[in-house]
């Protein structure tokens, strides 16, 4: 889901024996560590996936930041700030994991800010009413958890360890979101209408987070073979729907899909067609908030430049005074 914009990696001309030995390690469920030999395409796929995942965490702070100053109570404000801080942390864990593959932090930032790198399509939707913060926690983080729990077993060690850490923290995000939804859905008629409005707008974009349908996801099979991915997009999406529909029923809210139906034979829900045109359009940069998100990131990076420069200057000064002392001694 965080690799929505992946293209095929070129197959390298690597020795067959090395490739076979690598696959054998993967098949034995051995984790691959930074300095181990790995196929160039494995490295490239991981760098793209992990950095996109990191970008998603960073940009994901923005829709929520919209409500920090307008959170309805001090308690909600504290929770929201803690959650946003977690997202920044998740981004940093992931940038570190990507760096172990030889990608520089600067290049990743530059690629995000220049628009070259992608991030999850979901963060290009606006958060218009307070219930949206509930829906983001419940549906967006819920979908993210579905994917991230699966990624805890991904074959690359540093990525897997980051995911374990992130999953531990993410569960609070989903639960606080659902709690907001409960309060709103069981509140006044006006609050309930806001909750319904939020689910109306976030349901389909949340389903799109899992990425294209399996039949249109050509990179998936290699990623599955390398155990970078452990489940297909459609399987995870189905798991999410099956877990979430009963939660919407508890809230007394309607999921905006008139084709949604419980299949008694399988115990799973069948659902209507996802608007993939909208998905592709948002990925391409034409979602409701793409420009606003990028502008906010670029401004934050520019505004922070003097802090980075001051820190570098201070470190240099420290180093100089240390060197001077050595000379004297």
């Amino acid at each position, binding site marked *: 889901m965080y690799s929505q914009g992946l293209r095929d990696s070129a197959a390298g001309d690597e020795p067959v024996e090395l490739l076979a030995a690598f696959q054998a390690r993967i098949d034995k469920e051995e984790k691959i560590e930074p300095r181990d*030999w790995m196929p160039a395409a494995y490295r490239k796929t991981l760098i793209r996936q992990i950095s996109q995942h990191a970008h998603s965490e960073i940009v994901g702070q923005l829709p929520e930041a919209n409500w920090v100053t307008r959170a309805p109570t001090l308690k909600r404000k504290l929770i929201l700030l803690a959650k946003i801080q977690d997202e920044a*942390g998740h981004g940093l864990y992931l940038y*570190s994991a990507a760096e172990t593959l030889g990608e520089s*932090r600067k290049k990743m930032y530059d690629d995000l800010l220049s628009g070259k790198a992608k991030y999850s399509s979901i963060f290009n939707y606006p958060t218009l009413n307070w219930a949206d913060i509930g829906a983001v926690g419940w549906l967006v983080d819920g979908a993210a958890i579905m994917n991230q729990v699966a990624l805890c077993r991904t074959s690359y060690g540093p990525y897997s360890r980051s995911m374990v850490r992130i999953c531990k923290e993410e569960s609070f995000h989903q639960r606080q979101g659902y709690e907001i939804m409960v309060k709103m859905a069981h509140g006044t008629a006006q609050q309930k209408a806001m909750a319904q409005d939020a689910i109306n707008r976030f349901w389909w974009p949340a389903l799109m987070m899992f990425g294209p349908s399996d039949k249109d996801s050509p990179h998936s099979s290699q990623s599955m073979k390398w155990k970078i991915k452990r489940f297909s997009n459609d399987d995870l999406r189905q798991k999410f729907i099956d877990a979430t529909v009963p939660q919407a029923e508890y809230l007394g809210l309607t999921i905006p899909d008139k084709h949604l139906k419980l299949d008694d034979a399988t115990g799973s829900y069948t659902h209507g067609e996802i608007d993939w045109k909208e998905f592709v359009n948002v990925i391409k940069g034409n979602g409701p908030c793409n420009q606003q998100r990028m502008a906010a990131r670029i401004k934050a990076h520019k505004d922070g430049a003097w802090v980075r420069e001051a*820190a*570098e200057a201070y*470190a240099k000064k420290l180093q100089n005074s240390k060197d001077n002392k050595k000379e004297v001694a």
Partner: protein
Amino acid sequence: MKLYEIFLRAKSGLSHKHVGSLHATDSQMALQNARDLYTRREEGESIWVVDSSQIVSSNPSDKDAYFAPAEDKIYRHPSFYEIDKEVKNI
């Protein structure tokens, strides 16, 4: 910015354990960033930060040369020695 490796001691009695890395311009900033990044939920009561460039590590391709010799020295384990059941407390 320099890369630092972060180690946390979860509680006294345990050793410091590697938890990840981060960027900082100096070791003091690394310590402060580590506190914000890796201990938001009481994960540690002591932090070590190490400049990554200072770490010397074995090479994965030397794995066998380094570690394989230990494989056939099973006499280093107590289970190697057969002692009659009637002998107690050994």
